[in-house]
């Protein structure tokens, strides 16, 4: 057994990994932790699947029949499925900030903040860990959609791109949640705000209906809503709906980075 040095080992200072490597290492660490937690408790996967299944089975099938929403030659259920994937990812991510408040109350956050990890790396790690959780969610919804007869792509590259879109969306919305957590500092308040903003985010997007049929004011909101770009990209990849991938991915990446910066800036408040 080696003996820890009592004097400052200056070599340690030089041997620390480069910032970018450390960022990826932290992201990998938090994703792994999320997978380990999921492995220990799988019930959440099932309970979380109930809502999207209801949306597809009840809402989707009913609205397919009444043909109230103009989706061109695409069956409404096919049109809806990517929207529900985005929605279930949003629901997971928007409450992710609760975890950071829990970790704060439990003193875990204090310990994380004094590891050699910049705050932005911790937030990025958590943001992508939220992505891991939503991937598991997205897969469940994909399977349910396929069982309901939605004609989805089976191109593995496109499916990988679907996961990338889901992760980016989750990164943004979990950072939004962590930012709110940094502002309100309390679980119950975060729950309230999360619930208050989830539905507006969902309805002011193209998840349920095309942007074209919205009133002008709602259309403006939906263009400012990253969820719209997430749904567009998913719809393009999964059912071949036309979209501008460059715009979709740019918005999602910029939103995720902005979210990470905002949440990292507020971490100091959570440290107190």
């Amino acid at each position, binding site marked *: 057994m080696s003996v820890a040095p009592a004097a400052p080992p200056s070599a340690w200072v030089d041997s620390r990994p480069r910032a970018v490597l450390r960022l990826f290492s932290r992201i990998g660490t938090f994703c792994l932790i999320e997978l380990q937690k999921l492995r220990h408790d799988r019930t959440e996967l099932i309970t979380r699947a109930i809502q999207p299944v209801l949306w597809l089975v009840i809402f989707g099938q009913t609205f397919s029949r009444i043909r109230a929403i103009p989706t061109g030659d695409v069956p409404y259920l096919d049109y809806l499925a990517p929207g529900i994937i985005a929605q279930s990812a949003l629901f997971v991510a928007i409450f992710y900030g609760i975890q950071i408040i829990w970790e704060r109350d439990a003193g875990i956050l*204090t310990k994380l903040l*004094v590891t050699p990890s910049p705050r932005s790396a911790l937030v990025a790690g958590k943001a992508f860990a939220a992505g891991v959780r939503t991937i598991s969610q997205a897969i469940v919804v994909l399977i349910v959609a396929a069982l309901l007869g939605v004609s989805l792509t089976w191109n593995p590259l496109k499916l990988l791109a679907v996961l990338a879109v889901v992760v980016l969306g989750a990164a943004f919305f979990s950072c939004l949640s962590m930012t709110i957590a940094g502002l309100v500092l309390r679980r119950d308040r975060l729950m309230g705000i999360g619930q208050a903003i989830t539905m507006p985010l969902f309805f002011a997007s193209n998840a349920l209906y095309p942007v074209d049929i919205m009133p002008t004011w709602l259309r403006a909101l939906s263009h400012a809503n990253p969820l719209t770009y997430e749904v567009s990209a998913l719809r393009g990849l999964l059912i071949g709906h036309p979209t501008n991938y460059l715009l979709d991915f740019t918005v999602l990446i910029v939103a995720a980075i902005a979210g990470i910066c905002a949440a990292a800036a507020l971490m100091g408040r959570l440290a*107190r």
Partner: protein
Amino acid sequence: MTVEPAVEVTGLSHRFGDHLAVDDLDLTVSPGECFGLLGPNGAGKTTTLRVLNTLYPPQSGSVRVFGLDVRTAAMSVRRLLGYVPQQLSIEGALSGRENVSWFARLFDVPRRERAARVAEVLEIVDLTDAADRLASTYSGGMVRRLELAQALVNRPALLVLDEPTVGLDPVARDSVWARVQDMQERYGMTVLLTTHYMEEADLLCDRVALMHLGRLRAIGTPNSLKAELAPDASLEDVFRHHTGESLEGQAKGGLRDVRGTRRTAQRMG
């Protein structure tokens, strides 16, 4: 050439709003010693530790850890530290081993050594048999030992323990202290701790400092402090002498502590 102190605090003050938590504190801890920071609730002990471990940026004065300034070299300071906060802080949804491995990764323990290092610290704190159980099934004493393992996995030069035995039963308390002493002997690391238990500080600490209302009231070896007061004084008497048992300082600190305890209680159900 003189040896670099493990901790050197000079003129440190820290305020929260209009409450002055630490007031012009000077403190030096030598490498290899076990140093106890004592004082009633609200004395400023935890705040001092939190500036030292880089959680709070110093507002005025300077804090150096093995010569590194916490203000300018925070990342390097963090690599030298192991920290156990006052609350029981583990992730109950993970196993004990996963909890430790998590921190091994966050401290960049090389992949090749990681598994062995994690097993080694779990062995030191006597949790090898329980390592693969969910940490939510652990008792209070086991949680604290798991936290020690987490704090040790990066082989810190300085171990910082904030009230490591508060809320533990006497048996669990003894076992935690035994580990701390064992590790100190094994690795020659410096230990800086806070505690309410005077008899423990007397037995374990090479030197102690008494804080009250943010100020340093006395510092020295337990024996010298006792001898200064009276021939047969206990450290408890020294404590009373310097804090005057005054309650005025307890109000604010008391509330902060209560909040922390309540959080822990809520979480542990």
